[in-house]
């Protein structure tokens, strides 16, 4: 009986999906009563973690759409959930967004229906991670850089180059950097090495840190092998890195503004900087499922993400940057101009945003090393090979 009920529900769902499939809506109708969002942890807060951070309650009251959140911890999980169906929106990062577009899991967005679209940062409006052939597949949500975090007791002046974490040297306090620096425990860190080489070995001809041919890739791995000798432990969990800065004597590492803000909040002697080589970063987009059952509420939520206290408060909460520049200064939430600058708002041009490396790449004649090899080779590098 239960199985029969399940089949019925599934059939009903499929029918309701097909009814909406593929149709880009022309106008926002009546609220359906709910909207279901796949999001990163901490992205959609209703004041339950900290009562000062709430950007859901008011939306629910005003629109009549109940917000359901399903958190996902990796981009792969997000893609898998969207493939499964049953969700209206997803906050997709750059390595997931194009996969979703290519897999036809998300639908084009009619930006004319989103009143606050003109307020979106011009630098993000046509970003290649959500705009394909001039068609918008989403609304920018948040972005953030991977900054260089350092200990202010050791560095009286901010380090100007990523050199401190890539090459053996003495730090300003006269002691070597070996054992006192960290690097990210994920294959995408190869891009950080490539970015360093882009500035220091121009003869390699690297155009983008995510598009590396065999020679460039090999050079990046060689640099990382040298770095292995300097790094005691690689970081993958923000709170472990925070602990390592406090208890493990780590003084410099690539990091997120999130950790920097938390450590500063604990009155720890840390600072962060954008080194001269530039930084890598991430940018997330709210995208709408191709078979969204609640398109009206979905559009209302997308408008809400741009026009409410969300951009301002979330950028404080997450240590990120709003997609609406006004949110830094208009007092809609707790963010300030200084806060945005600390999170790297003015350094957009220095950021190489994360995309998944594939063999197809414009800058190296479609002969790039794909991501799955980044994974296995980075495991080797960490293992000392």
């Amino acid at each position, binding site marked *: 009986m239960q199985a029969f009920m399940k089949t019925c529900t599934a059939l009903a769902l499929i029918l309701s999906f097909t009814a909406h499939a593929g149709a880009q809506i022309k106008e926002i109708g009546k609220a359906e009563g709910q909207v279901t969002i796949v999001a990163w942890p901490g992205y959609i807060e209703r004041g339950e973690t900290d009562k000062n951070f709430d950007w859901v309650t008011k939306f629910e009251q005003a629109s009549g759409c109940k917000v359901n959140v399903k958190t996902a911890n*990796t*981009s*792969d999980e997000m893609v898998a959930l969207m493939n499964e169906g049953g969700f209206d929106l997803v906050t997709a990062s750059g*390595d997931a967004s194009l996969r979703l577009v290519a897999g036809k899991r998300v639908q084009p967005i009619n930006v004319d229906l989103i009143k606050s679209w003109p307020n979106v940062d011009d630098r993000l409006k046509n970003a290649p991670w959500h705009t394909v052939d001039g068609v918008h597949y989403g609304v920018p949500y948040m972005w953030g850089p991977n900054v260089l975090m350092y200990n202010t007791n050791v560095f009286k002046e901010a380090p100007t180059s990523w050199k401190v974490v890539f090459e053996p040297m003495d730090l300003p306090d006269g002691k070597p950097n070996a*054992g*006192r620096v960290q690097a990210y*425990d994920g*294959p995408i860190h190869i891009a950080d090495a490539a970015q360093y080489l882009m500035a220091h070995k121009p003869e390699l001809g690297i155009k983008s840190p995510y598009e590396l041919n065999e020679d460039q890739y090999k050079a990046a791995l060689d640099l990382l092998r040298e770095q292995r000798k300097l*790094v*005691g*432990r*690689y970081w*993958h*969990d923000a709170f*472990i890195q925070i*602990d390592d800065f*406090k*208890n*493990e*004597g780590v003084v410099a590492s690539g990091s997120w503004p999130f950790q920097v803000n938390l450590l500063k909040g604990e009155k720890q002697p840390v600072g962060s900087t954008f080194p001269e080589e530039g930084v890598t970063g991430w940018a997330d987009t709210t995208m709408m499922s191709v078979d969204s059952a609640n398109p009206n509420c979905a559009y209302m939520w997308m408008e809400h993400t741009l026009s409410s206290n969300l951009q301002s408060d979330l950028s404080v909460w997450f240590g990120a940057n709003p997609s609406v520049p006004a949110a830094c200064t208009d007092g809609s939430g707790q963010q300030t101009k200084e806060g945005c600058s600390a999170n790297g708002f003015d350094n957009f041009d220095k950021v190489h945003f994360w995309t*998944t490396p*594939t*063999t197809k790449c414009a800058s190296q004649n479609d002969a790039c090393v*794909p*991501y*799955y090899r*980044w*994974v*296995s*080779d980075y*495991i*080797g590098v*960490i*293992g*000392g*090979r």
Partner: protein
Amino acid sequence: MSTSAAIASTSAVLPRRGGVLNALSDAFWRNPRLLLFLMLAPPVLWLGVVYLGSLFALLLQSFFSIDEFSGLINREFTLKTYGELLLPSNMDIMIRTVVMAASVTIASAIVAFPIAYFAARYARGKWKALFYLGVMLPLWSSYLVKVYAWKLILAKEGILTWALDKLHLTWLLDAWLSLPVVGGNSLSVSFTGTFIVFVYVWLPFMILPIQAALERVPGNLIEASADLGASPAQTFRNVLFPLALPGIIAGSIFTFSLTLGDYIIPQIIGNSQYFIGQAVYSLQGTAGNIPLAAAFTVVPIVVMGIYLWMARRMGAFDAL
């Protein structure tokens, strides 16, 4: 008097009882095999479909390969993926994991034996209760909390370093940490740290089987050995140890297999070098290299297969 009258009034063949449940009960009584079938069907289905089925799906995946160019899975039978396992960096991971599992097992056995011996021979009454509580208590708190606590204990500026500093023993720690392989910047970023935490976390699984085995060793055998003039060392070697061996091996199956599969501890404590579990985790993720991840998971299955076969020969399962 009235009961005998009641019995006398009914015939030997009772009338059929009414109701669905009673009818069912009668059917089971007449057909014992039906009952057996119904009782066995769910566990057999579980074991056959859910457990073995997924295991075979996994094995099947390991015979596929990933296309070098596009990164897509090539669903044709090949041994190429197993060939990749033999690459030096992948061999490193397997050797590292097996060596760690073996050393954790040996150390756990050495630490657990005296504790288990005390509990089996000397502890009585409330001491016995205290022993069980002491051994089980760590299992009641979350595994993650324990590991994070150890991170703080072992950190460069942590409790252990502080204590050694007060005891003027910092030189000892520094000397140990300067050793290759087991050393590092601090205990929490060295294999020594990973090893200590593994031993701590899996120790209860070693103590309990050894204690059970020791309790079954008759006390008069030990006394007889002493009466016949054996030294305590000889008694241990020739009487106690061989009789406790099945328990030690049973415990070692737990510690060995648990260490072999763990991927949380080496992520938090250690120098970030991968263990098999971590390799599987990162290969099946964004990399989408499920064939290699599956091939990696076959390694612990094979290692444990050999281990269990050896354990059986040593008599670890005789008591089951």
